[in-house]
Structures are given as structure tokens and as C-alpha cells.
């Protein structure tokens, strides 16, 4: 529903606001987005949601005072009022102990995130794609739930130091949950390009897992060898990056990385980094302050090696931003949002034989990493496919199980990592992702 891209208008308004010389520094961040979400439940569309919105954030500094205001109206008088509001806040607030240093003009990598195939697809065409999956599954009595979400948007950053950045994007995410009785299966895919998403194939794959999940058995709590598929690993790595690799948690001591940079925190098979420029994830050339994206090592062969900073946390600690300025208005500070866990040397099809005897976990549900983030203690449930494996082959389905585990310790016990990786959404902004492999762990605690 978005009326084309407004790059020139956004930059023009940004230059007008940022060039007003009404404060020591002025930053203007604009995000326009039209999204469509077609939700389906039990092979029926139940919610179709189309939203066209924008956000215009203005951050000003007067000396060491900072003011922030935002509006969702692009009308000139609304933007002027927004600037007035930010100035009013800056005048009425207290001085910060640091001087905020914002980036100047930057050069950005060329990244293609905008695909006309996604922009042009109508809701009717997208509904037709999904309904084909309904019909396929119907023959085996499987019902489909999930959502096909698309977005078309653009982000622009302009500041009074002369920085100008603009990036258009498209986004597609399919989540497919197949169910038959209590048995379920799950598949998910994310891309900038709708034609890259094999909607029918993914729905068929989730139906296949569902059909294998029937008549689940019970398994006692205990420590098991596990093969975690990428969907499951993505939840753990997401929580590790949320609780461990942000500058705020590092500063206040709640992060497991606090005072441990340079120390081995996992086994050597684990390398995790953030790279907003890597097109294997959902790439973006700059962060929400206009700082260029670049690779940031987080765990290098098991050794804690880095933390994400934005301009605010970097200014406080007298260092450079790592290019992780959060979406304006997000008060939790910077986090890695383009996370990669490096693949290993095992082929995914060989991992089940390598597991031998143990449990295969397709995905996790409701993982929570706040139990004791300092120790990376997490809990969660298995979901959409838990299988007992014997002699390297799936023996039977199991009911969902709860794990409670120190994830960094578990990652010390990793025996094999697949070459193949899969990408999942990460965070609320569409251009965030986590890319992870299959992981075989010799000892994972299931507690109930």
C-alpha cells in the first residue's frame, strides 16, 4: 500500500531538519514501511493485515544535553513540532557525563535488499501461493497454520555533520506449522525476495515432519546427547546475543561476557560473529545512526571477543561505535542483530549417524535466557518435532520436553557442527537475522 519510495523527500526533510542549526547536533532517522501479514490457521485464512506506517525520529544535543522526539507524520508542520519537542526536552533535561559523538559522512557498501518481486506481489497472489499448500496437505489430513509476511520499506539517516544514508528494502518471512492431532511440524524461511521462498516446498516439509511426529512417547528427564536443528540453535544464539553481547549488559555486569573478554567461554568449535554486510543474512549497509556495518567478532573459536556498541554507549566508554545503533526508541541499548554462527565441517545428513543414540530436536519454544544471564542459564520447551534416535536413525517421536541448561557450558560439549546453515529473523526490524548450523552436543539437560 506504500506509494512508492520517497528517498528524495526523506533526505530533503532530513537535510532541512538537520541543517536548521537549532542545536549542536541534530540527527534525523526516517523509516517508512508497508507490511502485509496473511495469517492462516487450520488451513483457513483468519487474519489479513496490511499496515502502512512511518516513524521520524529526531535526536538533538545541546552541549551534553540530549533530547529525542518522534512522530509518524511526514507533514512538514508535524516534523517541525517534533524538532521543537526534541529541543524542549534537551533544554529541560540534565547534562550527561559524556559528550555524544555522532558519525560524520560515511561510505557504505552496496547492498541489494529491494526486490520488485516482493513489492509487486498482491495479497491475492500471496494467498494463492499459501492455499496451494493447504490443498497439498489436505490429502494427508494435515492442517496448516502460520503466516506469510512481506514488507516494503526504506530507511534514511541524515545528521548535522553531513551524514546522509538511505536504503530501500523488501522482506519476506514464511512460517509454516503443520498439525494433525497433537503432532506438529515446522518450517520457516526469510528472504528479501519472494521468489526465493519455496512456499509450497516448505509447507510440504513441515507436513512431513508432522506426519513423523504422531504417537509420541515419553522420555524421562536426564542428560542426553542431542542433535539440534538450526531452528532450535537459532533460539539459543539469539538469546546469547541478547543477554551477552550488548554494551549495556556488559557495562552493568549482567552479561556473561563481562570481565571475560579474551577468555574461553565455549569449546573451540564455536565461532559467532555479527555482520550486517553479509548477504547470507538480512543485510543492511548501516545502523540506525548511519554508522557503517562491519563484521564484529563475538566468540572466536570459543574465546569471547567482542561486544556491540552504538554511539551512546561508545561515547560513555570513550570508544568507537561498532555500528549497532538500535532502532530509535529502543531503550535496551545496542545488540548484535545480524548474527552468524559459523558452520563446521560435517555434512547435515551425516549428523544423525554421528549422534548415534540421543534426541533430535527440530525447534524450541518460549526460550528464556533471563534465569541467570551471567551464567547463560536458559530454559525452554522442545516443539514441532522431538525424536528419539537410536543407532543413528529416528526411532520414534517424543512428547515436548523442557530443557534447563547453561548454554555456554553446553557449547563446550559440541561434537560436530554442520556446514549447512539456515537463516531466521532476529529482532523487530525486518533486516535482522540469525544464521546458524546444525549442532551436535554430547550432553544436554532436559529437566521435565
Amino acid at each position: 500500500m506504500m506509494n512508492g519510495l520517497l528517498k528524495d523527500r526523506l533526505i530533503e526533510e532530513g537535510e532541512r531538519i538537520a541543517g536548521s542549526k537549532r542545536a549542536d547536533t541534530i540527527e534525523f532517522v526516517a523509516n517508512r514501511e508497508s507490511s502485509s501479514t496473511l495469517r492462516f490457521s487450520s488451513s483457513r485464512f483468519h487474519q489479513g493485515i496490511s499496515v502502512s506506517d512511518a516513524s521520524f525520529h529526531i535526536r538533538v544535543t545541546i552541549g551534553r544535553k540530549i533530547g529525542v522526539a518522534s512522530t509518524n507524520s511526514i507533514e512538514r508542520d508535524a516534523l517541525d513540532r517534533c524538532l521543537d519537542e526534541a529541543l524542549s526536552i534537551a533544554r529541560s533535561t540534565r547534562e550527561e557525563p559524556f559528550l555524544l559523538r555522532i558519525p560524520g559522512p560515511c561510505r557504505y557498501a552496496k547492498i541489494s535488499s529491494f526486490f520488485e518481486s516482493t513489492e509487486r506481489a498482491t495479497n491475492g497472489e500471496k494467498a494463492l501461493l499459501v492455499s496451494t499448500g493447504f490443498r497439498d496437505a489436505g490429502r494427508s489430513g494435515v492442517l496448516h497454520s502460520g503466516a506469510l509476511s512481506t514488507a516494503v520499506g526504506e530507511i534514511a539517516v541524515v545528521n548535522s555533520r553531513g551524514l546522509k544514508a538511505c536504503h530501500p528494502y523488501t522482506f519476506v518471512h514464511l512460517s509454516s506449522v503443520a498439525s494433525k492431532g497433537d503432532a506438529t511440524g515446522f518450517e520457516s524461511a526469510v528472504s528479501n525476495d519472494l521468489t526465493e521462498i519455496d512456499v509450497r516446498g516448505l509447507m510440504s516439509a513441515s507436513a512431513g515432519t508432522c506426519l513423523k511426529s504422531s504417537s509420541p512417547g515419553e522420555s524421562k528427564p536426564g542428560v542426553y546427547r542431542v542433535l539440534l536443528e538450526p531452528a532450535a540453535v537459532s533460539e539459543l544464539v539469539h538469546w546469547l546475543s541478547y543477554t551477552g553481547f550488548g554494551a549495556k549488559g556488559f557495562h552493568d555486569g549482567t552479561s556473561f561476557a563481562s570481565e571475560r573478554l579474551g577468555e574461553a567461554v565455549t569449546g573451540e568449535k564455536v565461532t559467532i560473529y555479527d555482520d550486517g554486510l553479509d548477504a547470507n543474512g538480512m543485510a543492511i549497509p548501516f545502523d540506525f545512526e548511519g554508522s557503517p556495518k562491519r563484521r564484529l567478532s563475538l566468540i572466536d573459536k570459543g574465546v569471547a571477543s567482542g561486544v556491540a556498541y552504538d554511539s551512546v554507549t561508545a561515547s560513555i566508554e570513550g570508544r568507537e561505535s561498532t555500528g549497532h545503533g538500535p532502532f530509535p526508541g529502543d531503550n535496551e541499548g545496542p545488540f548484535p542483530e545480524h548474527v552468524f554462527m559459523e558452520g563446521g565441517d560435517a555434512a547435515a545428513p551425516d549428523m544423525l549417524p554421528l549422534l548415534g543414540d540421543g534426541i533430535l530436536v527440530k525447534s524450541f519454544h518460549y526460550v528464556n535466557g533471563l534465569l541467570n544471564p551471567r551464567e547463560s542459564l536458559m530454559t525452554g520447551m522442545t516443539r514441532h518435532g522431538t525424536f528419539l534416535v537410536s543407532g543413528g536413525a529416528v526411532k520414534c517421536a517424543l512428547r515436548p520436553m523442557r530443557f534447563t541448561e547453561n548454554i555456554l557450558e553446553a557449547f563446550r560439549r559440541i561434537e560436530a557442527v554442520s556446514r549447512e546453515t539456515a537463516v531466521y529473523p532476529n529482532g523487530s526490524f525486518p533486516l535482522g537475522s540469525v544464521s546458524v548450523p546444525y549442532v551436535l552436543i554430547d550432553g544436554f539437560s532436559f529437566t521435565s
Partner: protein
Amino acid sequence: MKGLFVSILARLKRLGADYADIRHERITTESLQALDGEVEGFSTDTSAGVGIRVLYKGAWGFAATNVVNEAGAMKAAEEALAIARAFSAVNADKVRLSEAEPFVECYSTPYIIDPFNVSPERKISLIAGVTGAALKENGISSAEAFLEFSKAEKEFFSTEGAVITQTILTSGGGYHVIAGDGDDAQVRSYPDGHHGLFATRGYELLDELDFMGNLPRVIIEARSLVSARECPTGARDIIIDGPQLALQIHESCGHPSELDRVLGAELGFAGGSFLTLDKLGAFRYGSPIVNIYADPNEPFGAGSYRFDDEGVRGTRVDLVREGVFTGYLTSRETAPSIGGASNGSMRGEGWGGLPIIRMSNICMEPGKGTLVDLVSDTKDGLLMSVNRSWSIDDKRLNFQFGSEIAWEIRNGKLGQAFRNPVYYGTTPRFWASCDAVCGRDDWRIWGLNSCAKGEPLQTAHVGHGASPARFKSVEVGVRKI
């Protein structure tokens, strides 16, 4: 804008819509944060737009836009109709709405002090003051405080003739301190975790909460956790305080009693519910002293309103009465499945959120006595306070919750503190073990500002009335296996 919206609704009817409604909202938000005595963030946000919902041949479409003029609203209406048409061509079964009276009314949540008229200096002093004071204390490594105020001005119009305006004013805030010794970092919050306590009240709420007066206790407790032992493991009698019980009610009673969830609307995302239709009126949810109700009319709850976002007057419903499961949170679409009318539980996040069934204020009725009485009556147990972590399965049965602190109870007396306490179980068995609920003196309505549901993810303010309660023989601690 009324004339424009009425004419759009008339046009949608002419184009064949079974039903349509329009929500026009303007939400103003002010947020302040302080970290270690300094202002960490101070911002305002204004968001305005129109959301239009269309039912066409039994299928829904929803479109929303921030362009609040004739062209923008008309385009959204056409988009919503196009989605509904596309869905009606695929869906075999058709949506049927329960009857609802088309109200023509105005309503505003009551307050004494408009927080938007309170000076920035006063707000900054509150949060910078409490975090600065905390940081001066030995053993405290960091302190952070939050304030958030929002005013939602809402207009609702429907093809059935409803014209409703509401203004919902919400205030909230809180703080936490972190005590650390290099090897560990422990958090203690006031008055609740997760950015504090929220209510449909004015700034008077913040005055009453007395951040500074509670700081000495919070600091002592945080410091005690650093040297405290890990929470023991095994089956113990536990007393759960109000803020922690509020989250327990939220996750294990509120969400599973959402009828859209029961009927499968969230199967593709958050999951279903163990409270299936066959259980209504018959299922033993908890012990006979467990009484839980939903009521958007509860005064000052974070989830208080008079009309929901499909124009239905919010009414009280008993979810659990004397331990038996007795009711759902419903909408006009879902209510016919249990043979009734909607109890007014539909809300969308702002103008751009499709209304879905949300908790309003889900409250557990108070029992008898005080927390002091209950501790005195407990021979061997734990008192757990303020939520820290939460996880529950997709049917809302298997849960594990962690709190910030637990105290040992021996022979009716509180003893040493334990760190990293968790308890876990399955929902009906857990509620069946409830043998005591404290009385009205210890009851208050707690409020969260971040209940998440739906795709795209929507957050809502929800209230939970609770007083401390005791549960027998609950598994606690993280077992070493």
C-alpha cells in the same frame, strides 16, 4: 473526521461488506530512563492513524494507515476489502458475529494529576535521584529507573451505528538495582520487574509508589543475594508474592483462556490452549479457594477500559470459580462457539494493530489473612518475590518461572535469602496445590506494559490483581542431572 469515516463505512456496505469498523487513534507517549544517577533517555512519541476492519462474505480484511485524510483512509478501506475478498475466495467456513449493541458514548479513565503536565524536572529528579542514591551504596554496581506515560485518544465507528470515543491514560514506572562482586550480578526491582508497575492512573501513582522510601530495603536485598546460596532443589511449599503471582496468573490462566487461542488463531505462532471447549464449566483448574476473573472495569488496572476495540462494552467474567474453569475471554467472532455474546476482550495495539483477544485485568480474588499470617503458618517453605524469568509450553501447561529472590521459611519465620530461585510444574496440578490466599490488605492490582501476542507482534497493557498465595509441594530449583 466523523463525516469521512461514516461515509467510508457506507461505501463499504455498498460494496458488499457484511460489516466494517474504523478506529482512529492518536497515541502520545513520554518515556524517561535514568542510569546510575544520569538521564539515560528522555523522549516523546506521537503516533496517529486509522485502522479499518472489513468482513466480506464471512472473511476478514484489515488495513491501517498513518495518512489520516480522505485519500489515505479510503485507500486503507479498499485494501481491507481486497484482503477480505481474497480470503473469502479460499475459506470454506464463514465468520459469524455475535450480536452487539451499537453504543454511542464517551469515556475517559479517571486520574488526578495529568503526567503530561508534570514538569520534566520533577520526573528527572525522581529517577535520577533514586538511581544516583543507589549507586552510592556499597556493593551496588548499577541502577536503572524508568517512567512511561501514554495517552490514547480513540474513536470507533461501525456499520452498525456505534460511535465511541475513549481516552485511556496510563502511567507507570519502576527501578532495579544490580549488586555484583565480579563473579555474579544479582537484580532486585521495585515495585515490580519488567520496568515497574503500570496503571490507568495519573502521576499520583508515582507519588504513592515512593521509590526512595523503598530503596534501603531493595539495596539490602540485592546485596544479600550476592553472597546467598543457590536456591535448593526439591519439592517445597512456596509462598508467591503479588508481582510473581500476577505473572503466574497471566501466563497460566490469562493466555489459555483467550478463546481465539483456544480455537486455533495462534497455532502458527504462540500455540494453543489446554482449556479446550469441552472443559468449560467442568474442568477442575485449581483448588476450591482459587477464584480468578477478568474485568476491564476494575478501577485503575493497566488493562482497564469501558469499550473494547470492536465497540463491545467490557464486562466481568469469571474464568475460574471455586477452582472450576468457568469462562473465556471472547470476541464477537469467537463468542458464538460457546453460545454467547462477546464479553468485550478485543484490543489492538494502537491504530495499526488488528484487534485480537487480549487480557484486560485478570485478577485472583483475595482470601483471608495477611502475608505475615501466612508465613507464620508455614513450617518449611520458601517465599518467592518478583518475576525474573518465565517460560511455558505452547498449551500453557508445563511452566518454569524464576523470581529475583527467595527466602527460606522455617517454623513460621523468614530466614536466609536464596539466589536464582525457580519453580516449575504443570498448570492444573500447581493451582490444585493452592491452599491459602492472602486477604484484601495484601491485594493490589499489578500492571504490565508488555504483554505480547499476535503477528505482527502487538504489545498490550494488562492488569493483574493478586495477593500472596501458598502452594504445597512445588518443585523448586534447577536440578543437577
